[in-house]
């Protein structure tokens, strides 16, 4: 079920959106925080109910894909039902090249934390200004 939902920066392929009725199973987009640190991006995603074995994170053609499967079986006799856990899926287009081999991911208390360091060639370089 790995289609593309965002266009890669070089525009080489087109978007195929998933159709709810044809998808293998239902999924939702997890809420995320994305912020920049000195040498890369940090992505935090709330994926409650998913554990490390059902998690699939990849960067391909400048597109970050987060996919998480939850194994959840609601109990019988509900008195109140406000949520339902389904699988998570979300894609992002990354603005710059990341160092794919240095990506780190950790999962704590249902929150996925991804660190995406920039590739060495796109890191800002400090230029010394000479005064004469």
């Amino acid at each position, binding site marked *: 079920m790995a289609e593309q939902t965002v266009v890669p920066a070089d525009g080489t392929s087109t978007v195929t959106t998933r159709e709810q009725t044809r998808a293998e199973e239902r999924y939702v987009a997890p809420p995320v925080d994305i912020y920049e640190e000195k040498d890369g991006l940090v992505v935090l995603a709330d994926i*409650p109910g998913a554990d490390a074995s059902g998690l699939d994170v990849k960067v391909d053609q400048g597109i970050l894909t987060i996919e998480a499967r939850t194994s959840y079986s609601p109990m019988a006799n509900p008195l109140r039902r406000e*949520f339902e856990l389904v699988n998570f899926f979300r894609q992002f287009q990354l603005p710059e090249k990341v160092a794919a081999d240095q990506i780190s991911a950790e999962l704590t208390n249902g929150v996925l934390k991804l660190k995406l360091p920039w590739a060495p060639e796109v890191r800002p370089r400090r230029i010394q200004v000479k005064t004469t």
Partner: protein
Amino acid sequence: MSTWDPFREMLELRRELDRTFDAFFSGRQPGLPRLAFLPGRGARQYPLVNVYEDRDNVFVEALAPGVKPDTLDLQYQGTVLTISGEKPAPEVSSPESYHRSERAAGRFTRSIELGVPIDDAKVEATYKNGLLMVKLPKAEAAKPRQIAVSVG
């Protein structure tokens, strides 16, 4: 086998209506999946809960990813369970460095009416993968009782 009981049917209908109204007032359209997508700050009650029961227990399941486990606090009084805790905001050096900020953060508290008295000495709570699961054994007086029939 059960016989048709108009009063039970009415009770069922009432429950059905309650559920529909619940869904409407919680901002969710009936028929759509109950999303795990968490609402923004203050949009509605937090955390979302599922409540189940069996013969001996009531189970409360709360959707609360990213809560600091040592801030989780459960209190029980009367027949009301109160869940509170804090979800810390990410440590970001400056607000400008945000590209997206969709995850709500902060302190929360929510009370849930359970409807049955609980044996509060035996309550168990676990927090795993962002889900808080509370098992509340019903008080002896609230459990259904088997009555032996003696044949005379």
